[in-house]
Structures are given as structure tokens and as C-alpha cells.
């Protein structure tokens, strides 16, 4: 099933022709309208007219999150303010938020891409979409909302939080599709269990989860606990919001990135050089239809790989692999690169361990230490010390075996690790690195 069959299945050559044309016009526009890009292209000695094929894209300089902060709030907008109909912003955990603006056409494009994403995930007109992404400056809520409306589904704009009420509404309103962060879905499952509500009896069929990295193992856990098919969605506010890329329900293997609107590249995050197909590195995206705030070679900081292999669903758009972390979430512990998602994958593979964990990084003298806090569920608990100590040692050994990093596993009481109704916080870094 497709939402826009013509464009979703465009033969590769035709798709690339569309990309080039749209890229060229985007470059002309940002060069003319955004002083930052004029300065950046000029200092690299490049005129937009030198881009004659898609490969020429790599001659252009990157745009970074810092560039967006330096242009706070509206410096990178390419459309006049009287054409901007919506403003979103990132959470801004590390200083000023990054601000994005949308024209009417941008909102329309976003709605379509999100509607395409819903269809790829197996949703259709007639579905009742329970949208538990936060509404507000965060793009999740409104992005999914407009897509659901464009699809013609019934959307419940419940937003995040108030979990008991969420579950009641899901049950009473007969929600068939759930959209939220993966960690929040598991929190819902936990709350439902405490309330004596059985997810097996709800009508949920599909869950579309994103906004934070998660693992294949966590998918298994969510599918089992919520009794639905869990689909990974990708997006970021700088590029658009949710719906930049999504898994198709047919393959559930990699996320199709809507290439008629975005050009993806994978680079080595250290050197900036382009990596060949299939290699893991940082995802870089160029928007080729956005009007409000087009971005050229934006460094997403997300780590993934890219494949152009044909997919069984019939879509011709390239697929990015499940995000394995962020280049800025990456912890370097005694010289070993560690992504929280890798630790999560190890934990979830140990039977009985809840996917709620916290990583605490500290430095004793010159040595980094990693403590992995794991909740002791009833399945794991024993009245014998040696059984619990064996469990700690098993966690330590599996992490050492899989990631090559030594850690201390610390068992903690259930539900003491902070639950999140949005993005889960998994790491506390107490090292004073300056």
C-alpha cells in the first residue's frame, strides 16, 4: 500500500533527476536569500551553478547544529516571515533551542510525508490514531497529527503524560494505532499491568515509535507487551520533524528516507569524508523542497548506514539502518566507544531484565568508571545473595564480551529508575571533562 504511489515507487533514474532539479533550485534560493549560505559557499569558493550532478553535492560545506544556534532564532530562514505559518524549536538542552519555520507549502509537504509514513507502517483511513507524542514546540505531536489528518484517519490528539488516562482512552475509544516514544510505550505497558488492563484485549494493531534510539530487542519486548507491530520512524525538527524516514511493515528492515524531498549521505564523523554504501557513520541530510528553512548537508549527529538495495515493499527510496546512537551521545569510556543503545541491546537479551536502565559514568583518579543500574524485577529476584550476585556478574560479563568495556552492574529496586513520558534519559555523566 502506498499513499503517493507515483513518487514512492519512482524508478531510481527518474528519482535522481527529480533530486538534482530540486537540489539546484534549493541551492540558488539559499544562496540568494540566506546570508549564512552565501558566506559559507563563497568562503568555500563555490557557486550554486557548479552543481551539475548529485555527486557535486559533496563539494558543499556542512551545516551544523552550532550554525543553527549562531543564527538564532531566524537567521537561517529562506522565506520572509510573512510566509512562515508555523514555528517549532528543539528542546535546547544544551543552550538556546534551534528554531525552525514552515511555510504553508512546508506544512503540506510534511503532512504528506507523514501520511506516506503512516501507510508504510500499515495504517490506513479508518484507523484511530492515538497520538501520544508531545504537542507544542516539539515537532512530534503536530507532525504526526497533520499526517494522520491528511491520511484521513481519526486522530486522538492526546499528547504525552497522564498515562492512566491515556490507557483508559485507548481502551474506550478503540485506538488502533499508537504513536509515541518507544520508552513511553513500555511505561504505558507497565502502568496498564498495574491497573489490571490487558493489552491483548485492546484494539491496537500498529505502534509507530521514534524520537529516541531503540534496539531490535526492545522492539521484540514492545511487540510482546503491547500486542502490536512496532515500526521505527525517524525525524528531526531541523530537517522537518517526524516522517523523514520510516520502516515499511512489509520488510521492517531499514527506514525508507523520502528521497524526493531529502538527500541522505553517510560521512565519517571525525573526518567528514563520504562513506560508501553500507558503512556506518553520521547521517547528513540535504532538504530539497523546504522553503522556510532549507538546510544543506545538515549533520544530524545520528549514526546509521545507508542502502539502495531494492525493498520487497516496492518503494524505490533508499533505506537507513535503525539508528545505533548519536555521535554526540556516544560515550568514550577508557577509550572504548559506547552507545547507550548497545548496552540496552545486551540488557534486553538477558531474560527477565527490564529495559529500564541508567548508565552512570564517573572518573576515579584518571580512570573512567561505568556503572549500569538495572532494576530487579520479580522474575530476577531470589532470596539467595549468590543468585543476585551471579546476575550482576552476568550483566558485567555480557557487556564486556559484546562491547569490550568493563562495567559494574548495580541492582536497584523496581521503578526507581526515572521513567520518561517523552525521551528517556539513559546516561548520567559525572566526569568533569573540560
Amino acid at each position, binding site marked *: 500500500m502506498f499513499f503517493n504511489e507515483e513518487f514512492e515507487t519512482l524508478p531510481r533514474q527518474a528519482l535522481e533527476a527529480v533530486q538534482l532539479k530540486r537540489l539546484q533550485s534549493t541551492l540558488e534560493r539559499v544562496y540568494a536569500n540566506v546570508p549564512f549560505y552565501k558566506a559559507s559557499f563563497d568562503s568555500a569558493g563555490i557557486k550554486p551553478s557548479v552543481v551539475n550532478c548529485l555527486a557535486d553535492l559533496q563539494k558543499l560545506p556542512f551545516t551544523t547544529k552550532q550554525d543553527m544556534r549562531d543564527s538564532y532564532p531566524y537567521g537561517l530562514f529562506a522565506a520572509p516571515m510573512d510566509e512562515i505559518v508555523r514555528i517549532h524549536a528543539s528542546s535546547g538542552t544544551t543552550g538556546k533551542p534551534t528554531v525552525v519555520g514552515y511555510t504553508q507549502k512546508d506544512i503540506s509537504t510534511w503532512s504528506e510525508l507523514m501520511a506516506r509514513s503512516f501507510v508504510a507502517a500499515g495504517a490506513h483511513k479508518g484507523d484511530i490514531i492515538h497520538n501520544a507524542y508531545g504537542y507544542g514546540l516539539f515537532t512530534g505531536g503536530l507532525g504526526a497529527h497533520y499526517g494522520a489528518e491528511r491520511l484521513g484517519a481519526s486522530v486522538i490528539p492526546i499528547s504525552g503524560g497522564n498515562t492512566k488516562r491515556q490507557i483508559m482512552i485507548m481502551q474506550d475509544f478503540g485506538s488502533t494505532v499508537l504513536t509515541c516514544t518507544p520508552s513511553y510505550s513500555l511505561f504505558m505497558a507497565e502502568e496498564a499491568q498495574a491497573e489490571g488492563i490487558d493489552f491483548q484485549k485492546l484494539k491496537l494493531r500498529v505502534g509507530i515509535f521514534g524520537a529516541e534510539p531503540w534496539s531490535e530487542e526492545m522492539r521484540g519486548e514492545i511487540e510482546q507487551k503491547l500486542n502490536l507491530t512496532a515500526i521505527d520512524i525517524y525525524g528531526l525538527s531541523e530537517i522537518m520533524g517526524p516522517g523523514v524516514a520510516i520502516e515499511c511493515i512489509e520488510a521492517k528492515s531499514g527506514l525508507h528516507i523520502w528521497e524526493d524531498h531529502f538527500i541522505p549521505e553517510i560521512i565519517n564523523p571525525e573526518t567528514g569524508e563520504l562513506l560508501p554504501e553500507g558503512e556506518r557513520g553520521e547521517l547528513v541530510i540535504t532538504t530539497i523542497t523546504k522553503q522556510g528553512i532549507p538546510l544543506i548537508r545538515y549533520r544530524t549527529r545520528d549514526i546509521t548506514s545507508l542502502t539502495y538495495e531494492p525493498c520487497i515493499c516496492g518503494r524505490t527510496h533508499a533505506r537507513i539502518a535503525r539508528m545505533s546512537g548519536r555521535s554526540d551521545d556516544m560515550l568514550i569510556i577508557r577509550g572504548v566507544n559506547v552507545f547507550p543503545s548497545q548496552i540496552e541491546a545486551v540488557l534486553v537479551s538477558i531474560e527477565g531484565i527490564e529495559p529500564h536502565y541508567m548508565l552512570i559514568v564517573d572518573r576515579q583518579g584518571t580512570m573512567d568508571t561505568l556503572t549500569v543500574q538495572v532494576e*530487579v*524485577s*520479580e522474575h530476577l*529476584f*531470589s*532470596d*539467595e*545473595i549468590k543468585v*543476585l*550476585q551471579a546476575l*550482576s556478574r552476568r550483566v558485567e560479563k555480557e557487556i564486556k564480551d559484546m562491547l569490550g568495556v568493563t562495567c559494574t552492574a*548495580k*541492582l*536497584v*529496586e*523496581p*521503578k*526507581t529508575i526515572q521513567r520518561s513520558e517523552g525521551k528517556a534519559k539513559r546516561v548520567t555523566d559525572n566526569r568533569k571533562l573540560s
Partner: protein
Amino acid sequence: MKVEQISIFIENKSGRLAEITRILGEAGINIRALSLADTSDFGILRLIVNDGVKANAVLKEKGFTVNMTEVVAVEVPDRPGGLSAILQALDRDAINVEYMYAFVERCGGNAVIIFRFDETDKAIATLNAQNFNMLEGNRLYNM
């Protein structure tokens, strides 16, 4: 011959024992015997109470991890070598003691040892054969 014991996982941080005993007290539950096993990070509180099912329920409701295990309560004659005789009998039959703790019976004045064995039924058979006195759960709960 088996006695229900409840075990509670406790993180090593201040106030947890006080919290557990407060919850049990407010639920009208009386503690008969207890032992606390501890490591640097966590502890396991093991209790014999007058109403194990209720204790289990109220603690779970408050978010504690609790489980119930079967242990054996053996009366130890109050004379030198009393405990040794019991342990020797168990050793002869190759039964392992996972842990044990003692308290003094209120009426008889004998010591009572709570044992957790690796093979509970086999241990009971051995103790029976040697005529050691084991206390029924009900007698302990209602002591």
C-alpha cells in the same frame, strides 16, 4: 513441615528498612523472625510473619520486589552440641544449607533455627528420620 518466608530486595540506601517495617506495622503484620543478608550494594531481608500473603501483597503494592520461599524451622535442644547434631545429620545425607538464622521460642525457651536448604523435601525426610523437632508454619505464625 514447611514454613513460608517472605524475602524483600533492598537497595543499600538509608531508610529502606524503616520503610518496610512501617508498611508492615500499618498493615497490622507482626514479624516473628528475621534476618538481613547484605552486600555492598544491596540486601535481602527475610521475614517470617504472622500473615505472609498479606505482607507480600502490601509490600508489592508499595513497589517492593518480594518473593515467597519455603524454609524449615527446626527446634534445637538447649545443650552443647545441639546444633552440631542437626548439621551432622544433614551433612551425612549431602544436604546443603543455603542460609540459616536463629531466634528463641517465646514459650519453650528453645532456640529455633530457620533453614533454607537446596533440597527442602530431602532435608525434611532426614530431620524426621533423626527425630528432630520441626515447627509447623501455623505454630510459628501464631506464636
